[in-house]
Each structure stands twice: as C-alpha cells, then as structure tokens.
C-alpha cells in the first residue's frame, strides 16, 4: 500500500532530467501547462481533469483528493492492461486513446510514455 508523505522539501533532481527549454526561468512551461489544462476543463460538459504520472501518482487535478487518487490508481491499471491487450493482438499496434462510457458519464484517457491525461465528461443527453 503506497503512502505519500510530504517530507517538506523538494526531491533531488534525477541526473537524467533534461534541462528546460530556453525560456526565461521556468515560468513559461508552467503557464502553458495551466492554460492547457484550463482549456480542457472549461470544455462543454467536462466534470474533471487530471494528469497522472507513469507510476499512477496524480500530479495535477481539478477534483478532490480522494476521488483523484481513486481514479488515478484504477485508470492507470486499466490503461496498462488495455495497452498490453492491443500489443498482444498485434505487436506493431499501440494504444492511442481509451474511452469508457458509463451510465453517468464518459471517461477519456490519453496515454503516453510518461503521463496519462484523464478527462471525465458528462455527455449532452
């Protein structure tokens, strides 16, 4: 069972991390991230948006903590399973997008090597 503890200091940067693009400080990518997430969140019918990293730990979210953690853990596993299913059927193929339609809303997952973008939308009907 994972336990998140905030030790109160930033973790040391990994040696393989790339330096940021040539931008004045880290302000611009940060603003870009916020803007993009805000654009997605303000789309018609969107209930929540979150970004999860490769280990299933949520990094950014617009929902409350317990819901976010639940979504992140479950959808991370499901995305990995879906990805392996697609690749087992055809090794040249790969998962590009995952959509789950439920009675109440639709969950969309955009997977990537390092992150997952999860958007929950309430369809118009």
């Amino acid at each position, binding site marked *: 069972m994972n336990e*998140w503890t905030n030790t109160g200091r*930033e973790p040391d940067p990994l040696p393989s991390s790339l330096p940021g693009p040539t931008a004045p400080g880290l302000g611009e990518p940060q603003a*870009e991230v916020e803007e993009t997430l805000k654009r997605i969140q303000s789309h*018609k019918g969107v209930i929540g948006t979150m970004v999860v990293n490769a280990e299933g730990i*949520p990094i950014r979210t617009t929902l409350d903590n*317990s819901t976010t*953690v639940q979504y992140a853990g479950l959808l991370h596993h499901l995305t990995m399973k879906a990805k392996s299913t697609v690749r087992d059927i055809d090794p040249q193929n790969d998962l590009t997008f995952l959509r789950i339609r439920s009675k109440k809303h639709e969950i969309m997952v955009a997977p990537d090597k390092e992150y997952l*973008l999860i958007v929950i939308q309430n369809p118009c009907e």
Partner: protein
Amino acid sequence: MATRAQPGPLSQAGSAGVAALATVGVASGPGPGRPGPLQDETLGVASVPSQWRAVQGIRWETKSCQTASIATASASAQARNHVDAQVQTEAPVPVSVQPPSQYDIPRLAAFLRRVEAMVIRELNKNWQSHAFDGFEVNWTEQQQMVSCLYTLGYPPAQAQGLHVTSISWNSTGSVVACAYGRLDHGDWSTLKSFVCAWNLDRRDLRPQQPSAVVEVPSAVLCLAFHPTQPSHVAGGLYSGEVLVWDLSRLEDPLLWRTGLTDDTHTDPVSQPGHSHRFQVLSVATDGKVLLWQGIGVGQLQLTEGFALVMQQLPRSTKLKKHPRGETEVGATAVAFSSFDPRLFILGTEGGFPLKCSLAAGEAALTRMPSSVPLRAPAQFTFSPHGGPIYSVSCSPFHRNLFLSAGTDGHVHLYSMLQAPPLTSLQLSLKYLFAVRWSPVRPLVFAAASGKGDVQLFDLQKSSQKPTVLIKQTQDESPVYCLEFNSQQTQLLAAGDAQGTVKVWQLSTEFTEQGPREAEDLDCLAAEVAA
C-alpha cells in the same frame, strides 16, 4: 428289480446302466410284438447317475486367517507456549495528491502539447454524438417484484404484546436489530422489553430465534447502530436513559449507560443517533438534545447539551401558539445531514421542523439542571405540519432537501433554503410513523403508515401516488419503523405493531439509478419559490 446306482467310469457306465434298464423293462413285460392285456405293474426305481458330478469330484480344504496382534502405545502432548493475538481493521487513512516537482514541468508541457488536440477533438465528438442514445445495459438479473425475504419475530416479546418500535441495520449491512416496546402507552410502565438482533448472513438463520437478545428493564423506544463499529448499538428507553450495547459480547452486552442523573432526559427518548466516533446524540420530548460520550467503564458522560425553548426559536415562520414562559419544545425525530456533519434537522411535537447546528453558541434560556451549559441550537424554523412530526430524513444526494412525516398523514419535502415545503403529499388518512430516503436512488423514498403498509414513492414516475404499496400486516395494525440497508441496497426492513420485522427485497427499479436522476433532483430542489 435291481437298481443300478453305482458310479462307474465315465459314460460307458451310464449308457450301460440305461441299456440294462431297458432290457430289464422289456424282459419283464410281454414281448414287443404281441399285444397283451393292460395290467398294472410296478417297476423299480430308475435312477440316472449324474455325469458331471462324477467328473468334477468334490474337493474341499480348510483354511483360516488371523490378523496379527495390534500394537498400541500411549503418548500425550501439551502446548506449553501460547500467544494471543488480535486483528483489527482500521478505518482507511485518506491519501493526498503528490505535489508536483519543479523539474517535471517542461516534460509535462510537452506531453500536454502532444495530446491536447486529440483530447479536444474527442470531447467535441462526444458532446455531439448520438451513438448511445437510449442504449442501456443490464448487468444484474432483473427482479420484477417486491418480495418478502424474511419474517422475523421474537416469540416472548410478541407474547407480551410488544410492538417493534425501531429497527436499525448495522454498518456492514448484515445484521438487523429491532427494539421492542409499546408506543401507545401513555404512562410509565415497568414492562421488561427486548432488543433483538438477527444476522441475515448466517446460514442457520432462524426467523423466530434472534442471534442476540438483550433484556432491558424498560421499554426501548428507539435504536441506532454505530456507523463504523458493526456491533455497537445505542438505544433510548422510555425512562429517559440512553444505553449502548455491544452485541458481540454474549454475557453482559451493556457497554455504557447514562444512568438516571440530573443530566438525563426526563421524558422518553425518541431518537438516538451516532454523530462522531464515540458520541451518541439523544433527543427527547423534554426539549433537550444531548451529546454523550462513552468514557471509562460503563458511564456515558454528557459532553454537550442543547435545549429547545419556545422563545428562542427563530421566527422565520408564523407558529400557531406563542405561549409565555420558558416552555420547552419536545423533539421527536432527528436526522443528520450527510453533507455537513454538524447540521441536523429536528422534528418537533409542534409539527415544525427545525434546522439546528452543533456549533451554535447561544445559551439556552432554560431552568433545567445540567452539568454542561445548554445551548440553543435552532437556526431556522420551517412551516408546520398539521400534527406532531414522527420522522425526518435528510437526502443523501442533495444537501438542501429533507423529508418529514407526521400524524397528519402528510409527507412534506422541504428545502433548507425556505420555510414552506416544496411539495406536500398526502399518503394516508392515518398517522405516518417513518419516512426514509432511498440510499441509492435520489428520487425514491419510503414511508410507513398506520394502516399497515409501506409505501414506496418514485418522484420521477409520479408525484401523486405511490409506485409500490407493500402490505405488511394483514389486520391493518400500524407499521412503526422502516430502514433501508445501505450496503445491500435491495433490502428494506420494516417493523410493525404485531412484533414482527419483515425484510423486503425490492425490485431492480428501486435499486439502480437511472441516468439523469441526480439532475432531476437538482431541478426539484431548485423550485424554490422566489
């Protein structure tokens, strides 16, 4: 005649014997060619020796067997060391989102740049798509009818003519407990009564034999299980005491009691409820709302108290009587809001619900003795019913809606934002004793009436008449209490005046949410008059 019976070697003897007989027979009688007079003659015994038995011969031998003697040995074993261990599940610890690290931002930005266009395209497509219109999937087997699963009763209590005054499901949804007492006695009674619990998940469930029975010296009027501890149950007695039992202890289940001190209620307790982990809230018709905490061994101590005084009720609606003096307002029902743990709704004898808060600070103008300063909790008064309210229930899906039911046979749906009710439904010509929202469907509630039936209302289908009417008692004796099971959502338990508890299994339409129910409930709540 000589008989040839000697065994001889093989077939020659046999045929010779036969031939001899033939010749003997012929020789004695007259010759074959000459017919003679018929005369009786006695011939000898003719015997044909067995051929096969001579061949086989009979041989026998004697054999015997005997088991060898059994070796036995004695040895004894004794455990010397033993270790006691206990296992206890803990309430889950809430986890939090990891704060982002600074150096990840550029990668995050690159990722979002990559996926944004695709996600926006999919969101647009989804918003305009009609692909799933009217598409519904059935995962579970559909149950069409409402059926009675169990009829539970405790014969000694029924023999005394006790009614089921209150029922409660425990936190895991597997045990239903009921309290016996009488609701129509107007005076003090020293009748012994019972609290019985049945565990419905046990295979050897016997409907007439509860898995736990507690004898109580006075009539128990109300019961509530602890919200997280599956075996703790609190009950309020006619004498004004509040007791807490632990049903997992077979000898002496009594955990805590309030005792009869100055602090306790002087009138029958009408509803206990658990608000926090170890605190019990009790309300009674003497106008006091008390919060007890179990400390140490056996004693419930008063931690906070509230008193309802007529003078201090907020004048948000015109009440019929304005008596002078510090008259107490008797409280008959309490319901906590699922959204705000300190907000609760009280139903009163005067027929008006009150919105109260545990955090109220104003002191109550009352002369009732108490070890803890009593405060006035009421913040808002709603329009009254035509008679005392017996039951209130807050909606688990909407923070502002609650139902109240009383002796005038009406159910009022109130919004906490306004005094007059949103709608008022007449369900019965007799009293209504209990009303409860469904824990799974936002628009469904159930009401127990004095005519012996349980009415299930679906506000989505019809707001005028009940969707299902379940007849609980045959002789129209009233149904006093009902509770939904929040874990096994298809079960509804109801207790009646004949001392039986019936567990009903609801049809699927009452246990599965439709697609837009939450929105419909919001619409209903938004019909607040300007």
